């Protein structure tokens, strides 16, 4: 079902207005952060005057460089209005060398409170306990999941998985070590599932699969699974839905990261053939699928391209960041009057082997 043009243009107008507000915030000395104020002074133009629409942003801003998040001290990202407020430091990457760091205050709460409305009580009963099995440590995800559970009146158990270690041993082809580590993680999760009343699970597809091999997830009390983190090709989604969750447990795949937040997936319809499409939490974040060699251009619908993220919040302005992912560009779809990204996988997945590991 296609959305009517008025809905689409209203969403576009809302995005443009939100973007102008965020640009004004980050590029005004009384509110903005040192990095962007300094950037604008060196660039020699004022985004507040010249960027009036999201299309202008794409035309005028270069790609955000992830080195900035590695090399610069976090303080350069603190907006003037937030000076003095302690912040969270969230990390991503870091398998080798310095990880990327993003600071934040409330964005994760906003993102996950909004996402909560996508989760039905049938699969995520309010007040019933959650279990997160996945990367915790310095990641935004850990606080976000606990906040989401708490927001729904639920507590949350945790089992940690260190993806940096997994990537390291997989990169060194120490597959036995990777498997032993995965078993170690899964065993801890299974113990919790056996001894505590838990009805909702956040984990990665591979860990979910491994847990499903150790116990009957439905019999263990699980009713809903919220998944994210790695590639989920249609066949793999089908396998999870049909054979791991056996059609009895709700499945909610998401695409997200520390820099963007969380893109929810549109509920699967039979005609989707298990191809999952994610929609960014617009206007706070915008996902485009662009031509890798001409990143100013979006690819046609139902065509593969590289994922480009723009984050537009008062806590973070991150224009046109090229993710290390590729995806299929999809049409807007109710309730999301903007483009979606489908079948996300590591950029260049067809050309080379990517270490995604066990998580």
């Amino acid at each position, binding site marked *: 079902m296609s959305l009517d043009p008025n809905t689409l243009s209203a969403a576009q107008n809302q995005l443009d207005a939100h973007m102008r507000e965020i640009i004004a915030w980050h590029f005004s000395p009384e509110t903005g952060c040192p990095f962007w104020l300094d950037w604008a002074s060196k660039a020699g133009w004022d985004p507040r005057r010249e960027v009036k629409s999201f299309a202008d942003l794409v035309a005028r801003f270069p790609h955000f460089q992830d080195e900035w998040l590695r090399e610069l001290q976090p303080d350069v990202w603190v907006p003037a209005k937030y000076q003095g407020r302690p912040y969270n430091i969230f990390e991503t990457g870091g398998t080798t060398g310095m990880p990327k760091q993003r600071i934040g205050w409330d964005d994760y709460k906003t993102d996950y409170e909004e996402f909560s409305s996508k989760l039905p009580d049938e699969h995520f009963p309010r007040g019933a306990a959650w279990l997160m099995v996945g990367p915790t440590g310095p990641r935004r995800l850990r606080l976000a999941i606990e906040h989401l559970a708490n927001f729904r009146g639920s507590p949350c158990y945790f089992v940690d998985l260190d993806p940096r270690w997994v990537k390291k041993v997989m990169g060194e082809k120490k*597959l036995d070590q990777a498997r032993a580590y995965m078993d170690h993680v899964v065993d801890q999760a299974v113990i919790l599932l056996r001894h505590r009343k838990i009805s909702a699970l956040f984990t990665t597809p591979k860990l979910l*699969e491994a847990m499903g*091999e150790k116990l009957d997830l439905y019999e263990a009390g699980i009713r809903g699974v919220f998944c994210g983190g790695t590639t989920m*090709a*249609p*066949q*793999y989604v*089908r*396998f999870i839905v049909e*054979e*791991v969750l056996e059609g009895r447990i709700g499945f909610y795949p998401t695409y997200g990261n520390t820099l963007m937040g969380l893109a929810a997936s549109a509920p699967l319809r039979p005609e989707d*053939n*298990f191809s999952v499409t994610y929609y960014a939490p617009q206007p706070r974040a915008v996902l485009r699928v662009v031509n890798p060699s001409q990143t100013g251009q979006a690819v046609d619908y139902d065509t593969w391209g590289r994922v480009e993220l723009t984050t537009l919040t008062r806590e973070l302005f991150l224009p046109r960041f090229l993710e290390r992912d590729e995806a299929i560009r999809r049409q807007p779809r109710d309730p999301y009057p903007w483009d979606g990204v489908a079948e996300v996988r590591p950029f260049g997945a067809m050309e080379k082997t990517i270490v995604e590991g066990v998580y």
Partner: protein
Amino acid sequence: MAALPHLPALRRGKPYASLDQVEVKDCRTGEALARLSQVNAGIIRKDLARISEARSALMQFSCDRLLEICHQAAGFFLNESLPLGDQGHTQTPQQYVETLSATSGLPFVMVRRNMEKVASALRQMRTILNSLTRGLDLGILDRGLGEQAGARISFYAASPCLGLVMPSNSPGVNSLWLPAIPLKIPVILKPGREEPWTPYRIIQALIAAGCPAQAFGFYPTDHEGSAEILRGCGRALVFGDKSTTAQYANNPAIQVHGPGLSKILIGEDQIERWPEFIDLMASSIADNGGRSCINASTVVVPRYAAEIADALAQKLGPLAPLPPQDETAKLAAFANSRMADSIDAAIEEGLRSPGAVEVTAKYRNGSRKASFEGAVYMRPAIVLCDSFAHPLANREFLFPYASVVQAAQADMLSQIGPSLVVTAITQDTAFRAALLESPLIDRLNLGPISTMQVAWDQPHEGNLFEFLYRRRALELS
């Protein structure tokens, strides 16, 4: 009916159409000839958890009945139209030959020869099992216990299934796993990327002959899926080059079928007769397009190495690609041209080390790597090496390749290294005794016998019965 056949995965015999499908293409024209369902490792794990159902299905049959089924399946495999996939397609024997030739690069004549090899293994399965079990009354496997030569014996399956990670190089290799079925062990088989046809056709022939479909797992899959088969099956065969097989070399649950490094040795007593053996050497090197692990890849002689290399080069060097349907075709095309590139580069690199010369070059009239009718071929190469230390002396490639190395007879066995087949042309009693004593040789041909000759009553490349079954001590009161 869809235009293209679709080969589903078979999960305990049940077709499973995956959303992840790849096309199997004609290596010359790029035309898609079928779609092949790919499954993820999780599906294999899921099915392995229920593998006892497959074993139970086979246990309903006696070994004797399964041998009859094999015999009948041989005829079906060779002569009948059999189902091809889940879209209503069938495949005649001629279509099988043409399709397999198109995707694997083997000329028709070689496909037919391999086809006959598979059919012959099915037909002679009773002889094969007799040899593998050393004459065991197979009723003992039906009952679990019995008597042989006055002793009580009992056997049990070491694993409820046999995992198979198959190669694409030559369809005849499928004959190695066939005994598993009359031994009542279900198979979990990953076909080679360019060669799903042969195992699929064998399975269909066995099912048509009355074998329970549950006995067959057919899982086109990726590296992770292959690893799962090798890890999860309890007993598995893996085929591949050294880089693939080395990691499993010390794993008793996995039988490794790596490079054969098969050889022909001529003793001091016979070397003056070397011209009489040139045809035998050439056919051992080049039959089946040089694609088998039982092809000779090294000729070891005490004298006349240069003359022998030259004679082999004169005979093999001029061989050139021919159309696949040509009954005299001797060379196979490479389904993956990059493999030919890397083989050619490896030989070039080896030739840069002093002490080796490619003798075929002067008889070939063209380059080693050749394009013909849209496909890439490697034309035969005979390399004269001054010692076993040369990097090209003990190598095996997927085309008619052999080194000729001169070594004193007394030094041969200390230098040849592990060899799947050795044909030793000698009447020297002491040398024969030393050959019989050597732990490096899997199959020994004493006398002028092609390394390519297979005798079904002589198990080689590991004894599948001993791999799949263990004898237990048993007392009864």
